[in-house]
């Protein structure tokens, strides 16, 4: 675990603790970027970020305000599955209580009910999200553009062979405008449940989608301190990168 306090020059409005789940095994498509964006934007909004890591066998950090889960290979999912099961109650309790969480790809799948791999074994999920995932021979790779009511257009990149379907207990994050999303049939991408955002998009997701980053931050701050007074992040490059990505043919 690495506490990282970004000391600013002005008085901090408070500390927000971001916990990354299994960064050693579940972090393969630049998921570190999501942690980095939260750390930096918390500073820009005037708060003090603390980045903590939770790996297999660690003691679970006290007072987590935001939970981050990343992507991983099938082999990584096998390594963490027992430890994750042992934390199922804790994570479910936090989710029900409204803790903000960002779950990408592999962790999205494992927060669901199960992941039935193509080769046979079923990896049980922790059932926080009412979704199920089936491994397929088809790999869905490429740029994705998602239309969402909450965060506007969400841009990213997908690379997965597991296909996820949503049950009635969750809403999709949005509708796919380009790319594939959760599965090759229903045109939906990601899942929303309480303050959880789950998605197949890496890329990383938060740098080019600061609206989602600020949603996680605002929710965490409001839960902890009652009100959120935002700062003024300079999103010039994020806007340009988004415009450029949206314009490109692939």
């Amino acid at each position, binding site marked *: 675990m690495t506490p990282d306090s970004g000391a600013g020059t002005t008085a901090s409005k408070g500390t927000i603790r971001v916990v990354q789940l299994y*960064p050693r095994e579940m972090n393969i498509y*630049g998921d570190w970027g999501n942690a*980095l964006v939260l750390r930096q934007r918390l500073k820009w909004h005037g708060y003090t970020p603390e980045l903590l890591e939770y790996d297999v066998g660690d003691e679970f950090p006290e007072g987590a305000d935001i939970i981050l889960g990343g992507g991983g290979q099938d082999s990584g999912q096998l390594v963490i599955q027992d430890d994750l099961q042992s934390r199922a109650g804790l994570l479910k309790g936090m989710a029900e209580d409204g803790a903000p969480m960002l779950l990408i790809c592999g962790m999205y799948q494992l927060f669901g009910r199960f992941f039935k791999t193509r080769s046979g074994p079923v990896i049980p999920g922790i059932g926080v999200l009412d979704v199920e995932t089936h491994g397929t021979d088809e790999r869905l790779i*490429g*740029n994705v553009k998602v239309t969402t009511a909450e965060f506007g257009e969400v841009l990213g990149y997908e*690379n997965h062979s597991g296909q996820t379907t949503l049950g009635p207990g969750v809403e999709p994050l949005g509708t796919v405008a380009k790319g594939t999303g959760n599965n090759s049939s229903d045109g939906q991408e990601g899942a929303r449940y309480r303050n959880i955002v789950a998605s197949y998009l890496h890329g990383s997701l938060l740098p*080019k989608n600061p609206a989602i980053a600020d949603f996680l931050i605002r929710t965490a701050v409001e839960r902890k301190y009652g009100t959120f007074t935002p700062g003024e992040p300079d999103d010039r*490059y*994020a806007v340009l990168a988004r415009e450029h990505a949206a314009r490109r043919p*692939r």
Partner: protein
Amino acid sequence: MFSLSVPLGKFVRRVTRLRGGGSALPGLVVEKIDPGFMQRTLSTLPHGVAVVSGTNGKTTTTKMVVELLESQGLKVFTNRTGSNFTRGVAAALLGDVDWRGRLDADIAVLELDEAHAVHFVNRVPPRYSLLLNVLRDQLDRFGEIDKTAQLLQHIAVKTTGTVVLNREDPRVARIADTLHGPEVLYFGLDDSLLGTFPSDDELRAGPGSPIPAVPERPQADVVLRRVGADDADFEYDGVTVTTGMKLRGVYNIFNAAAALALARSICGSGAATADHSTLLRALSEVAPAFGRGESLTVDGLPLDLVLVKNPSGFRLGLKSFPSGGYATMIAINDNYADGRDMSWLWDVDFDSLRAEGVDQVTGSRAYDMALRLQYDEVQVGAVGTDIAADLADFIRKGKGKPKRVFCTYTAMLAIRRELSKITTVEVVS
């Protein structure tokens, strides 16, 4: 046996070269009309075929192996243009065989792309193979790095003589467990250098994270013990030797250990006597393959091109080439040859550029790169997507300063093309 395929292939090769066209078309033609051409020709070599593969460093390592073997008096055939597909090998062969299809060489040392190597080794089982690494820069092509490791494993399984493996890359070292036929040799790093080569699995661990314990590792045939400013220590046969190095970048010098291990193994199998001092002299004289840590001259001052293709490579590039006193440009393209998915930029730590900033960011993913730098609090001068215009600006504004350009593969090609208009750039034919 006289076949028309060779003269016809050579003719196509000549025509495409006159047109300045691609290197693979003549290979395609000869493969269509004479599918056995490559296999037949390579099977005549007295010391067989050595394949170099891995996600990173193939071109420079292959060049090193070739020069090491040539220093021992061997005639080596290689696919020097970096066309590392089966078709490219056939095309390169067409250039070297005589009109009757005979190849005058002792051994072939071939750089092969991971995916294409599988097709190649199914047709031409190599006598030697050297497997460098499985890094994360090709995920959009292969999906998972475990899949890439399987491709390399297949090369190893098809190898009849000796397989040389990177002891420090767990996915490569593990291949040894699956082999029964070939002899296995390793190249490795001194424990003190392991920290400079974070594996992809460890990349994201933040500063202050514990360095994972070093597990028991097999004995390596060649170990890189130390890297100096322009020299390095290698240990083999129980002795540590110091040699000057023209190559820069720790990763290149680690690959020199790989090349030494392979060349020594080939010589040891009776191809040559592996003369110690000429081998080392040859190693000290190897210059980087094009674009890989090349230093060019612009306005009388050096301009270094540092190829970056994955998080480990970019990290090592930043570590090997400190930014102090240099004007810096970063050029990121996301064409097929670069990899389409640039997520990995978020796994590179750009803190070392904070003191001096980055003068120019360019390439098709320039805005993503600028965004990445912003989150590491690195000042960015100008951002654009037109490499030719941005390079000109960078050179104009950076007058009087040596320059460094970190670039992805196709960005490097574009930059070399532009630079060749104003300076002498090595021509690779």
